[in-house]
């Protein structure tokens, strides 16, 4: 069973789930009008009818619905919420107010344009190629006026693969302790390193999982670490197996060396 088999009959949309996603991404269905709870209920009904749970499909569904939820919450809040958190409430309010007024103005203007367009309903224009004998004159005047490079460029644009939709922060759930263990072992093999280095550029979930992996390494006696102060840098190094010395003592010694 795939998610494509999930048929929806909602207030604002009826059809397959796949299509709904496409329409949402193309902004042809307004996410704000979409009751995501209805989608979830439809999915549960669907599962019940099927009488079986395909884990892979279920995972896919959860990831997608989570993405939709997040998208929707961003729409409902504001896209630059984080920035706003750093400024004074009055400032934030002014900024928000300005934006809301702008949004309101252009939404009203959009309605006006919609009315103009509706007012032109039934007005059609003639669209026919110029008669051949006149066209001949046109062609002659325009011969060689276009640059073929334009066509090559257009093809280059079309060949470009679009960046994948970024759901890294959602699929982070897929980061496993096992993967992070492998990652840490690889770093250990090269020598000492800091925790920051191990998680550079990673999202919060990955950082958390990496920490678990580090604990696991410690438990297995493969690595140990040292932190000089709380929130300070964590220096990690391989445990010297032969000596069997106290991890703390060794850690302190190695930590000094790494902290540069």
């Amino acid at each position: 069973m795939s998610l494509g088999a999930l048929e929806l009959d909602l207030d604002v949309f009826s059809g397959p789930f796949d299509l709904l996603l496409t329409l949402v991404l193309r902004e042809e269905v307004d996410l704000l009008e979409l009751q995501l709870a209805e989608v979830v209920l439809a999915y549960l009904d669907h599962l019940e009818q099927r009488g079986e749970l395909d884990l892979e499909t279920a995972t896919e569904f959860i990831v997608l619905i989570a993405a939709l939820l997040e998208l929707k919450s961003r729409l409902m809040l504001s896209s630059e919420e984080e920035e706003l958190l750093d400024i004074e409430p009055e400032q934030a309010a002014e900024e928000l107010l300005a934006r809301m007024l702008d949004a309101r103005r252009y939404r009203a203007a959009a309605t006006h344009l919609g009315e103009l367009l509706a007012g032109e309903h039934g007005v059609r224009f003639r669209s026919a190629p110029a008669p051949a004998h006149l066209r001949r004159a046109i062609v002659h005047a325009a011969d060689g006026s276009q640059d073929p490079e334009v066509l090559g460029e257009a093809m280059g644009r079309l060949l470009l693969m679009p960046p994948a939709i970024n759901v890294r922060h959602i699929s982070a759930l897929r980061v496993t302790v096992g993967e992070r263990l492998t990652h840490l072992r690889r770093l250990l093999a090269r020598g000492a390193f800091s925790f920051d280095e191990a998680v550079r550029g990673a999202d919060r979930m990955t950082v958390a999982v990496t920490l678990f992996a580090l604990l696991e390494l410690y438990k297995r006696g493969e690595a140990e670490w040292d932190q000089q102060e709380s929130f300070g840098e964590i220096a990690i190094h391989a445990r010297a197996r032969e000596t069997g010395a106290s991890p703390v003592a060794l850690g302190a010694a190695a930590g000094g060396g790494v902290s540069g």
Partner: protein
Amino acid sequence: MIDEQETAIGSVEEAAPHDGAPGAAERAQGAAPAATGEELPTLVLTVEALLFLSSDPLSPGELADATQAGEGAVLAALAVLGEEYAPGRRGIRLRELGGGWTLASDPASEDSARRLFSRPRAATLSPAQAETLAIVAYLQPISRPEITRIRGVSADSASATLLDRGLIEEAGHSQFGAVLYRTTPQFLKLFGLRSLDELPDIARWDPTPEEQAELRERLLRAGEARAS
């Protein structure tokens, strides 16, 4: 052709009585001295609008279907229009061609038309048009659905404009019945190309040249990724 037209008008005169009110009204108006203020029957106006909009000749049958009027009434309407557009009365003529009727500009305006069309225009292609034209040029013959798949967005208005400007034309149908497009000789002239072989090598703009797949396949893949 003129004879045919006259015949048609003749038959309309005969058809008119069946037409009842509009025909009679029209004739009554015809007698009225003032040129201004005369009202043409609705059917005449509708037929005029349809002829205006269509780039191909329309048969009385087609006009009757579209207006949901009888063919006799349509012929009567065409007769009225024939008078309205009698040579010399307007800049547009009503002509009968291959069993259909069409509006065409009066040949008397040809010199002005030539000047109008040969004026230097801002002829640059929009990105959508350039993309659509490039797809047709490199992959011809190609169907509109396929162009849409490659672009990831509809190419309807762009291809309509290109057809309109005579840069692409229809080239039969695909096995699935979709209209196929190819470029025209006019396209080659406009771009200063002697043949399609002179189209620029895409390698220069190719973002992933190491990939070996066919151009068409790769375009489709990228297009689908864009659309999803």
